[in-house]
């Protein structure tokens, strides 16, 4: 009854005061963003921004597609249309390297017609190398980091043409070459496509409408990955999680960002008229649930892998042997990515890891006569005695190696975070700092693996 006098103005004693120190528990109730907030503040603006960003590129690709289907269009006009859409795209998206890129195209075309002795062997890469080095040393780091992808694609295209020309010594049409280099479909997000595939675009007469659904499907996957990369990774795992969980989160964010780019590129390629068979760029499932690091490296960017295989690894194998060729390949790959310590460190680490893994698993596969090598052997013509169907531990061992690969991936991918230096490229100290936080664990594990391999060899 007493307590009813709620508007009593009397002075009350101690009992009016409590020390509520025990209810600190419910601090955390309001801390986490709600899904709706995530939608309003992150997913919606991200998706909207990106759609607006992609619209010009989509329009340019559709123009390319239409141009390829008009059968009356003369050969040179078609390639001019491709070049002009490309010029528009580059101007719109990567104006920082606009003039430089045009200059490079001209220079690399002239290079194709130099006497043979200037462009034999590894010399075919000279224009590309000069271009990358110029950008690396004379460009504003922020701008260089922004247009690096464009430059990478252009140099890959130019050197592939140069190598092919050196081997086959066929004539390269200037219009075709400019159209190939600038073609808006692949200029921005890649992937690398061969000159031959580009030439086949011309006069494709069949119209099929099912591709629209695939385009939309690719786009949906791309945006799904974008949302994971931007919003969900940070939402599910907050900064207070353990350092390995954080490493996994940042690495996942980086991987999904890569899928976003790849699927967008696939979609754009399909819109630009490339056949479906060439639009497979990455296989997310084989990266997320890897069998081995070798498989991850292959599935990461299939066109890039093909390029490296046919223009660096195979020629390198003849001269340097297998180990040399692998290191050469990863060096070339990191050079293509610019002289960035972080990428070089990641790629070279990957090079060593894949080599060790490949050797060890090959050895084990032979010793135990089981399908536990880096590459999956097909079930029908598997030369091993034991495979995942008739022997349970084959699956187990493959699973363990897969988990090891995931561990390495988390370790290698964590430096691509959203810190301030993401726009200018990650520095030497950032990489070392991030890795030393984890005690260089993955390198030690790889070293241990190598020791194991060395002992049982």
């Amino acid at each position, binding site marked *: *009854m007493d*307590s*009813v*006098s*709620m*508007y*009593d*103005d009397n002075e*009350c*004693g*101690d009992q*009016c*005061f*409590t*020390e*509520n*120190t025990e*209810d*600190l528990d419910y*601090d955390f109730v*309001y*801390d986490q*963003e709600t899904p*709706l*907030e995530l939608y*309003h*503040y*992150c997913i*919606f*603006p*991200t998706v*909207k*921004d*990106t759609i*607006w960003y992609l*619209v*010009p590129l989509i329009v340019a690709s559709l123009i390319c597609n239409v141009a390829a289907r008009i059968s009356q269009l003369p050969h040179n006009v078609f390639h001019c249309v491709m070049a002009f859409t490309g010029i528009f795209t580059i101007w719109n*998206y*990567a104006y920082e390297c606009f003039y430089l890129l045009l200059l490079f195209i001209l220079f690399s075309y002239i290079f194709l017609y130099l006497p043979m002795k200037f462009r034999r062997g590894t010399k075919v890469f000279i224009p590309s190398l000069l271009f990358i080095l110029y950008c690396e040393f004379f460009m504003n780091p*922020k701008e260089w*980091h*922004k*247009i*690096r*992808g464009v430059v*990478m694609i252009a140099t890959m295209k130019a050197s592939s043409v140069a190598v092919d020309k050196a081997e086959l010594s066929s004539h390269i049409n200037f219009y075709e070459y400019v159209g190939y280099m600038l073609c808006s479909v692949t200029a921005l*997000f*890649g992937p690398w496509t061969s000159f031959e595939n580009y030439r086949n675009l011309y006069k494709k007469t069949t119209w099929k409408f099912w591709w629209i659904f695939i385009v939309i499907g690719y786009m949906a996957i791309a945006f799904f990955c*974008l949302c994971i*990369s*931007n*919003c969900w990774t940070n939402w599910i795992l907050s900064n207070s999680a353990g350092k390995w969980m954080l490493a996994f989160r940042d690495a996942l964010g980086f991987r999904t*960002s890569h899928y*976003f*780019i790849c699927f967008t590129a696939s979609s754009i390629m399909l819109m630009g008229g490339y056949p479906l068979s060439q639009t497979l760029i990455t296989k997310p499932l084989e990266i997320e649930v890897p069998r081995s690091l070798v498989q991850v490296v292959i599935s990461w960017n299939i066109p890039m892998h093909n390029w490296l295989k046919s223009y660096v690894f195979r020629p390198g194998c003849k001269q340097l042997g297998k180990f040399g060729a692998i290191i050469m390949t990863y060096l070339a790959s990191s050079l293509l*990515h610019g002289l960035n310590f972080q990428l070089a460190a990641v790629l070279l680490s990957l090079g060593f890891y894949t080599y060790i893994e490949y050797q060890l698993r090959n050895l084990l596969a032979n010793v135990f006569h089981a399908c536990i090598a880096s590459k999956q052997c097909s079930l029908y013509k598997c030369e091993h005695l034991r495979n995942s169907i008739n022997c349970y531990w084959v699956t187990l061992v493959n699973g363990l190696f897969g988990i090891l690969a995931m561990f390495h991936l988390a370790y290698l991918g964590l430096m*691509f975070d*959203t810190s301030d230096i*993401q*726009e200018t490229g990650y520095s030497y100290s950032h990489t070392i700092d991030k890795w030393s936080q984890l005690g260089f664990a993955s390198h030690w594990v790889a070293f241990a693996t190598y020791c194991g391999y060395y002992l049982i060899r």
Partner: protein
Amino acid sequence: MTTMRLWMMLGALAVAVPALPAEMRSNKNRGRGSMWWGIAKAGEPNNLLPMSPTSLHMDPTVYATLRRKQRRLARENPGVLMAVARGANQAITECQHQFRNRRWNCSTKNFLRGKNLFGKIVDRGCRETAFIYAITSAAVTHSIARACSEGSIQSCSCDYSHQSRGPSGVRDWEWGGCSDNIGYGFRFSREFVDTGERGRNLREKMNLHNNEAGRTHVSAEMRQECKCHGMSGSCTVKTCWMRLPTFRQVGDNLKDRFDGASRVMVSNSERTRGVSNAITSNSASNSVHAQREGLSRRHRYNFQLKPYNPEHKPPGVKDLVYLEPSPPFCEKNPKLGILGTHGRQCNDTSIGVDGCDLMCCGRGYKTQEVIVVERCGCTFHWCCEVKCQLCRTKKTIHTCL
């Protein structure tokens, strides 16, 4: 006699809810606009009329804590009251977290008695009061903004109309998301929290300034995050988004400002704006109806406080200001509603304010061993549940004499 009062009370509640504030007016000089803090305790079981949260707007105990204008705001913007109550609770929790190791530990009264929730300390214009005002105002801003994006307040909605971007607009990014929530929270907090403070005397100015500082901290902490996407880690596409700060961050920032709060005094230019022209600035952007009480809004916030020490620089928008030094919190002082530090726990190894020397004000402390039951071995179960075990551990605690 108490029975009679009870019946009178209930009768009054049942017949005319708006009639209640008659009693409020009797003590309106105390903590003018701050009575609404009591809303935090509205739903607690030790309160007289327990109620479900959904009927919050109906509840007379809640209404009793509000001023007329605040009641109108609550009526016109359904859902707002819940958010304010949540914000007030958040403010108390945060305040107690920030001050857990200090002599004044942000204690609150446990039920409504028509008095101020934080006790009589609020009557003094000291640092602690400044912090209370700032944190409550910030909490309302934060909570309203959050409720807006959750869609539980009908009168605000996400406004996506800010699309001033060209086709190549990625070079300078512009926020294209839900832009108005923080703005709505800010404006609503001004209307709701600042109701009683007209800025007529120095104390009201102090309150206004601190309220505004709290709000500014929330909106300033709203931060943009960006991420690069492109071929192999380059930055071809840069996408950005916003993140609402956690209230802990706001609390941390305000605590920093508390430590560096500036003492102010009456400014000479105080009376320069007597002319209160009624150009009530157009608040058409949403339905937080702004009916000016006396001074127009522009003038209400347009003052500069002078630092007490002329050598200090005048306080900025984010700074907390106070008028008088804090009373000693060592001994119990019922006049000021101070509990004293008797019986408080302290840390015998620390040399800071939470250390036993400072906390107990030199009175000494006793040490005892107790068995504490706490949660331990918590594991996360997908999704989204945390299961814990209860552990008994022996702990040595020190309490001030």
